């Protein structure tokens, strides 16, 4: 079906199943350890071999010699794959660096060899017997030192790298009140709990690969490109994925090596990455330096707003587009944004949860706080004064729906914002300085075409098949809810099969488009199935009702089970194709974050006390899993604000803290009470199911709200994330 005009009243509006808080339908599998993740897909297979990846020990240079003789003789070793034995591989456009090193080395821990052995222990041990002689060459590892050589890319995520409206320079220099500040955000690792893993099986010339991947169709295409083989001969399966956050959008060395090794050894081969290897091998969110300039009139109306962003990537490919929110979020006649990128010889920089918008709002929303203070305004009032119903840089383009003001006001009421400490550093409870901070949350809500197949089986059950993935987002459940709503059956009667490339191609999980897009695809397929059912039942599909597992009109009612029994299995498949509604309207999700922190007055340790988010994201398909998405993203944003930092050693050229002890992510003890309020709503311009993305909204702005709360607590403005105690301690009050 084409979706090119706003959705009208449709069966989803009944909300008998959809929008009801619903425990995950795959929950019983996950809590019993019976959900099968990629590395576990060798269950029942015979003769499985283990692969262990060897990574480069240097960041940039060439392999002069790679001696595998000792490793080859090691007990249990079946094969060793290197660039010398593999030959030439294709490079998928979605990979910034090559998956396989040799003889050139592009970054530290670039995959260089795979040892295949009878057991994991043997493969790991033999991997350490490979001796490599490198020729090291000069690399660039420092963003700061490469600012001058940075370039403006053609495009960044979501638009051009340079935008200009009106006369920014003139308006900024003539503004009554101005702010010009520079900030830094650190590099972040996705650090999903399940390391990338693959099990590959060859039968004749057909490859089946179980891998942990967010986008099945991208995986399919990119494996085909990498291995120079036809897509038809590949099947990718990924029913359960242990987290992704953007880190599993692109094919990695585990999949490439598993496939090649299985072909070479004629045995199923399983390969996973070790945790210490992941940080320098996989993509990461690039560190940024960002400059924000805001000019206002005396009353606080923004007259000029500018945002510049510098980041680095291998081959200067992917910019961490921190300027994104500034293009749209606030009104102002004169504006500019620019993203520049430096060529750094680190592991590739790429998308991580809310690319651009997450680090961008960590900065913009602190700048807004600073500006409000300069103006002597409440930061909420300042934001509301500059609120807009049309896109900031393009007044001709309205938002499909925007209730930012309500998010801020509702949050303020719930959180007790009125009672916040008015003067920074004035509130103390025992050893703790207490502060509150606020920020706006803003994340675009794009959509992607998405297909599904829906079956009514002979037994009257409903089966939904799509290559959509569930990376923890709750796809299984909302897809099941959608089908149940559309066909008028209880959720327990619906089986959902995800992640298989044999199923119709979905939007996949990324860009917070998964929920709205994939359920719309299921909606489309269900509409078709309703027509088929109505046809065989002899009812008019336009007027027939699907309730109580029956199809009925004013005079007749037939149980679906009876129809299926009589007419055999009925199947329908369809794709939702999104037209240009998103060109006419800017579809975005909005919210507000409220944070209360305590800062230890002696040590400067920052601890969260309360977190509240108010969100407006269209129809909430499942309040239970949507809330979980919000709190999870808020926690990830708290990590970015307070502890997460991929530290670059500029001599060696690598991320030094490359394990989960060195790269700290929040633990239970870091996360206090979290409250999430969804503004009840539907956005008919977003998608047939009237939902917008919510999975990445929660990370946007939360870091800034924390930074603003720390400032409110201490009076110390830290402009370089993460906000650790060493950046605060010298400005805290004397102890005695």
């Amino acid at each position: 079906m084409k979706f090119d005009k706003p959705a009208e009243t449709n069966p989803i509006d009944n909300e008998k199943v959809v929008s009801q808080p619903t425990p995950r339908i795959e929950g019983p599998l996950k809590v019993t350890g019976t959900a099968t993740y990629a590395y576990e897909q060798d269950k029942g297979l015979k003769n499985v071999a283990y692969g262990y990846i060897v990574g480069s020990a240097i960041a940039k240079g060439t392999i002069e010699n790679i001696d595998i003789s000792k490793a080859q003789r090691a007990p249990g070793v079946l094969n060793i794959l290197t660039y010398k034995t593999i030959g030439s591989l294709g490079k998928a456009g979605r990979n910034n660096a090559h998956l396989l090193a040799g003889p050139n080395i592009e970054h530290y821990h670039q995959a260089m060899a795979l040892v295949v052995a009878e057991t994991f222990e043997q493969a790991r041990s033999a991997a350490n017997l490979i001796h490599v002689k490198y020729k090291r060459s000069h690399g660039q590892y420092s963003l700061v030192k490469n600012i001058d050589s940075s370039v403006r890319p053609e495009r960044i995520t979501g638009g051009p790298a340079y935008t200009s409206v009106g006369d920014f320079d003139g308006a900024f220099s003539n503004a009554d009140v101005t702010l010009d500040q520079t900030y830094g955000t650190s590099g972040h690792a996705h650090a999903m709990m399940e390391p990338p893993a693959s099990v590959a099986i060859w039968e004749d010339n057909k490859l089946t690969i179980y891998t942990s991947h967010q986008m099945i169709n991208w995986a399919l295409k990119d494996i085909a490109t990498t291995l120079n083989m036809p897509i038809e001969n590949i099947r990718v399966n990924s029913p359960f994925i242990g987290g992704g956050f953007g880190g599993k959008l692109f094919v990695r060395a585990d999949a490439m090596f598993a496939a090649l090794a299985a072909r070479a050894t004629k045995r199923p081969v399983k390969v996973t990455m070790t945790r210490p290897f992941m940080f320098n091998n996989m993509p990461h969110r690039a560190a940024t330096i960002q400059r924000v300039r805001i000019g206002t009139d005396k009353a606080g109306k923004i007259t000029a707003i500018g945002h510049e962003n510098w980041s680095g990537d291998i081959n200067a490919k992917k910019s961490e587009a921190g300027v994104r929110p500034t293009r749209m979020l606030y009104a102002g006649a004169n504006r500019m944004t620019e993203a520049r990128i430096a060529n750094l010889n680190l592991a590739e920089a790429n998308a991580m949860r809310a690319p651009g918008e997450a680090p961008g709002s960590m900065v913009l929303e602190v700048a807004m706080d600073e500006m409000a203070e300069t103006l002597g305004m409440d930061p909420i009032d300042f934001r509301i004064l500059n609120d807009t119903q049309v896109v900031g840089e393009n007044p001709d383009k309205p938002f499909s729906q925007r209730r930012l003001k309500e998010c801020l006001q509702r949050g303020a009421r719930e959180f007790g914002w009125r009672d916040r400490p008015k003067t920074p550093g004035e509130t103390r409870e025992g050893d703790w300085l207490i502060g509150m901070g606020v920020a706006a949350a803003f994340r675009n809500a794009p959509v992607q075409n998405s297909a599904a197949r829906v079956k009514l089986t002979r037994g009257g059950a409903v089966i939904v098949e799509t290559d959509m993935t569930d990376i923890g987002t709750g796809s299984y459940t909302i897809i099941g809810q959608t089908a149940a709503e559309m066909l008028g059956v209880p959720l327990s009667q619906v089986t959902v099969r995800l992640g298989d490339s044999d199923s119709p191609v979905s939007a996949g999980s990324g860009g917070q488009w998964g929920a709205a897009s994939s359920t719309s695809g299921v909606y489309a397929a269900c509409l078709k199935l309703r027509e088929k059912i109505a046809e065989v039942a002899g009812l008019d599909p336009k007027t027939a009702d699907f309730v109580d597992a029956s199809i009925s009109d004013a005079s007749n009612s037939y149980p679906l089970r009876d129809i299926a029994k009589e007419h055999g299995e009925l199947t329908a498949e369809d794709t939702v194709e999104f037209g240009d509604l998103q060109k006419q309207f800017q579809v975005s999700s909005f919210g507000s974050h409220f944070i209360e922190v305590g800062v230890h007055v002696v040590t400067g340790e920052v601890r969260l006390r309360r977190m509240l988010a108010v969100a407006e994201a269209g129809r909430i398909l499942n309040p239970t899993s949507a809330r979980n998405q919000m709190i999870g993203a808020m926690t990830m944003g708290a990590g970015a604000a307070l502890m997460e930092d991929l530290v670059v050693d500029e001599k060696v050229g690598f991320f030094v803290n490359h394990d989960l002890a060195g790269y700290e992510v929040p633990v239970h003890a870091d996360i206090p009470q979290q409250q999430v309020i969804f503004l009840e709503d539907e956005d008919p311009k977003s998608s047939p199911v009237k939902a917008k993305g919510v999975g990445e909204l929660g990370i946007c702005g939360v870091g800034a709200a924390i930074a603003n709360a720390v400032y409110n607590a201490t009076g110390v403005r830290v402009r370089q994330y993460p906000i650790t105690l060493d950046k605060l301690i010298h400005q805290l009050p004397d102890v005695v």
Partner: protein
Amino acid sequence: MRPFNYHRASSVKDALAIAGAKSNVKFIAGGTNLLDLMKLEIETPMHLVDIADTDLDEITTTSAGGLRIGALVSNTDLAANKTIRQHYQVLSRALLAGASGQLRNKATTGGNLLQRTRCPYFYDTNQACNKRVPGSGCSALEGFNRNHAILGTSDRCIATHPSDMAVAMRVLDAQVEVKAANGDTRMIAMENFHTLPGDTPHIENTLKAGEMITAVALPPPIDGVHVYQKIRDRASYAFALVSVAAIIPKSGTAQFAFGGLAHKPWRDKTAEKELLKGSKAFTDALLKTASTTEHNKFKVTLVERTVAAILAQAEEAKA
């Protein structure tokens, strides 16, 4: 992980005999650090002697009125022991501030003392590290050293000892009981157990080849306010940036030991004499030889402020 032979000793005597007959041997108890390092081939023993079946898992009272803690007593059991909780609170607090519940269940008293540094360059075998490969250089000196030592460092190594428990043991002036292959037992004061890096950062303690830690002896309880304050970025499950173990008696001078500052739990009894003049005099004396880097100089301020606050709070409590 290199292949090794696994031996399960039936007694301490048996363990020492097996170890004495082999080369490149490690005793294994909890294994929470040793196996971690073996997977990375930072530790590469050819023989593991498991001492789980020895009788070193008891806490008993000593004739001197203190406690003898068997080397196999787990961190959880030690922290939860009634006597420790009542009379050696600093030790209980230190243990509970360390690692996670799972790790504390497995980690042992002896093994905790033998933990190796968490320096990221030590943990990456592609990087130069004098502790791992003597003479290869120290990557941390000019690298990322935010959590490295500021006291007792050398130009070969600025690593810290990561234990919390050992810091409490140091402030308590505990003694480490070790047994040699010939059955001789000797006591090593905590002060002398761990070493400074000097020119030999790969040597971390004064155990001799073939010796095994059998127990840690605590002196009789020391009255006073017991404090263990661990300062870290993450609220739990993280190594200390700085930790402070303190015992502040009702009268007389306080005792302080520190984690996160040196290659060993740090205590400076000479500096403690300055406590009579106040917190600042103490920390000035304590830190006068501090050698900091750009990333870790905050530790000086952090120690000064934390000590001052601990002393001030103890004063308040007395008043």
